[in-house]
């Protein structure tokens, strides 16, 4: 719970939130410029003021770029880079108005730090967001003590410190609160979903017991069992029957081997081929698909299912290559018309990364290629 981010627990939510980081960063830069203009009369060092705005812009750029789905996952270090740059901006702003800062209310430092922390909330744990807020407000408090001599209001320093830190505290409290609540909501749903899935499993089993009658092994069973019954009641075995027995034995062996060597991925390909008429080829000589965890399987299934739409692809191939400490899964599709937008593929890339798969994609007019990689612990 404390170690999870929304991006990890709910990857699609993380991707959806990416634009809000850009908006937040833009608003932060806008606020910095606007408030600098408002307190321009207090500025003693224009250079420091410009540096402060540039640092805000840098912090915003780092946040926005880091949150892009193609760069997922957003690591904890990225939060600290953003916060450090923003705090640097606050220090530069302090320097720009040092000695003549009459009003703390029009300083952009606290609000900009708070806004940046809030906008990256979907990508960080609530603990790290809260910690970022506390550390940033500590630094700001030191600055306020320095500025308290020039402030117009006659108030105790402690009150100034508290009021000045309020934007950072409130916004990072909102960020931490959001991160905490969304994880609680997601995990709560997952518990519920798992309980429902377990219940569905037993229904599924009953359903499969009937539907398996269509499968290869059932068809074989329907031939083998009557044949044996025939032999049991017959007086003699004919040459043809002996041959038939040999054939059936071979088929049974083959079916058993095919069943053993195929994986859930082959079954997925078969079902897509039957249901959608898209040629889906799986090349998995070592059965590596079985090494994937449940969530990794879900991510791969979602991608393959999405690609294997008649409007999207003509052919989908999935090949798995293993080496000593991991493996690669290459999914490539021949687009049916226009190749899918990078933005759409990026969604799956981000999901794959959320379930600890390495993921890269490359698309051309002729071929869409996604490469996933995993490491065996």
């Amino acid at each position, binding site marked *: 719970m404390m170690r999870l981010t929304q991006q990890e*627990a709910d*990857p*699609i*939510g993380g991707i959806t*939130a990416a*634009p*809000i980081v850009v908006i937040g960063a833009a*608003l932060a830069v806008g606020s910095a410029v606007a408030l600098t203009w408002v307190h321009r009369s207090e500025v003693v060092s224009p250079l420091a003021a410009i540096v402060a705005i540039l640092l805000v812009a840098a912090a915003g750029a780092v946040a926005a770029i880091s949150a892009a789905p193609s760069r997922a996952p957003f690591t904890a270090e990225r939060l600290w880079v953003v916060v450090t740059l923003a705090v640097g901006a606050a220090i530069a702003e302090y320097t720009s108005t040092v000695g003549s800062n009459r009003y703390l*209310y029009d300083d952009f430092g606290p*609000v900009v730090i708070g806004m940046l922390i809030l906008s990256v909330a979907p990508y960080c744990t609530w603990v790290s967001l809260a910690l970022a807020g506390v550390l940033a407000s500590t630094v700001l408090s030191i600055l306020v003590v320095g500025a308290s001599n020039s402030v117009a209001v006659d108030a*105790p320093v*402690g009150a100034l410190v508290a*009021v*000045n830190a*309020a934007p950072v*505290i*409130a*916004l990072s*409290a*909102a960020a931490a*609160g*959001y991160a905490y*609540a*969304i994880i609680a*909501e*997601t995990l709560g*749903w997952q518990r519920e*979903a*798992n309980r429902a*899935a377990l219940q*569905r499993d037993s229904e*599924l*089993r*009953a359903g499969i*017991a009937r539907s398996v009658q269509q499968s290869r*092994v059932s068809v*074989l*069973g329907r031939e083998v069992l009557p044949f*044996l019954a025939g*032999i*049991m009641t017959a007086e*003699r*075995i*004919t040459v043809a029957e*002996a041959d038939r*027995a*040999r054939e059936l*034995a071979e088929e049974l*062996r083959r079916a058993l081997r095919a069943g*053993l060597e195929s994986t*859930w991925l082959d*079954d997925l390909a078969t079902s897509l081929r039957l249901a959608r008429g898209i040629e889906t080829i799986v090349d998995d000589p070592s059965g590596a698909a*079985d090494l994937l965890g*449940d*969530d990794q*399987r879900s*991510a791969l299934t979602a991608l393959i*299912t*999405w690609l294997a739409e008649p409007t999207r692809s003509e052919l989908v191939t999935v090949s798995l290559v293993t080496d000593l400490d991991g493996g690669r899964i290459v999914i490539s599709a021949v687009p049916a018309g226009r190749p899918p937008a990078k933005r759409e593929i990026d969604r799956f890339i981000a*999901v794959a990364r959320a379930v600890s798969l390495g993921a890269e994609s490359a698309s051309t007019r002729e071929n869409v290629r996604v490469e996933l990689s995993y490491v065996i612990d």
Partner: protein
Amino acid sequence: MSLGLPGHLARDSLSRSLAFAGHCAAFACLTVTIVVSVIVATVGERPNGWTGAALAAVMMLALAAVARYPSVTLTVLALVVGTGATIAFTMLVMEPGGFESTNNAVLALPRIALLLVGGAGSGSLIAIVWASLGYALGEAAAFLGVALVGGSYAPSTAAAAAFGILLVVRIFDGASRRSDPRQETGLHRASQQTRELAIRHDYELRATARLHDTALSHLIAIAAAGSGTVDERLRAGIRQDLGLIVGRDWAIDHSGQATANDRGGPRRAAPVAEPSPNGRAARGRFAGRTTAGAVTRARTAPLPAEPRPGGTTMLVQSFAAAGNAGLDVRVTGDPEILHVLGPGRAEALDAAVAQCLINVARHAGVDEAELALGLGGGEVTIAVMDSGVGFDEREVPDDRIGLRTSIRARIEQQDGTVRLWSTKGIGTTIVLTVPEGGA
């Protein structure tokens, strides 16, 4: 495990999370208000500070009530209480000689808390309505408060900024769900499908193993015998096996359905003349066997029990298989210890032991085997031993599958282990271990 929130829940979950975030920020603002008031009262020696702290505390209580029970009544109540507190607070703060106007950092705090009260219902629109109401009431309270003590009113920049941030977040949340990438990505559906595929795969593998155990040896015997009269023992074997499965869903493991003469212990029968299809070359080995260390791709998760007719009978399949194959089985230990296992697990163990005995009969070149049963350390252990020809693991091709599916996969599905020792000319021991309990 399911990845993330499904589309139909995302709206409410996100809405609740954002409301919670707003409440956290509001609590932070009111906490700062209390801290500032207390500092003013103590360090600044202005007793009005205590009143300010008390007003903020009252707002906090109202907010806590809404956060806990988000009903319309409580929301309205919290807004009314908050407005009253803000009027009083403005009157305290705006006493002559202090701030120039109501647009200051201290007066912004309760106003921001007021617009973050949020309230009943979920969804962006409702949230925006409540926030607008809170914002308007906050400004009205400041206006009224400053009018009562005489000072100049100015709208709070900070409260306006907070309102702006809330609008951006809520509008973004509402708009981003319209395109519905959750539906498009189908992650929830995919995880259901993955689960279904895994179950289906397990099921088919089990069905195949079942058919393999039941039918393959007979087919091979028929093929090898060639034309001629049907061997009586072969006929009896087929009858016995078909009796187990005909008229039922053969793909599901059954137990407790053995014929009466096979119950309760070893039975002596003539050795089987059942050469493998590869002729004599395959004799003396476990035909359907991989090397002991071969990687099994069986899933190790325990499978839920399958529907099963009848009560539990111990090692029925094993004794039936031994009897059918003409194998004399000596048993040490009490088969009743299998009662510590769940019916599904006991059955899986029985089926695996049966397959071990079939292998002994088919390949070991002896007509007796020994079963040793033990219970200890939370596990049931059964050793199947023969003093037959044995084999060299390295000589067994990797593609042999009998041991792998029929024995190893079954046991590993029950979280158990299979260990195998074999020496040429001395014999083979297979030890099957499964934990107590299970389905």
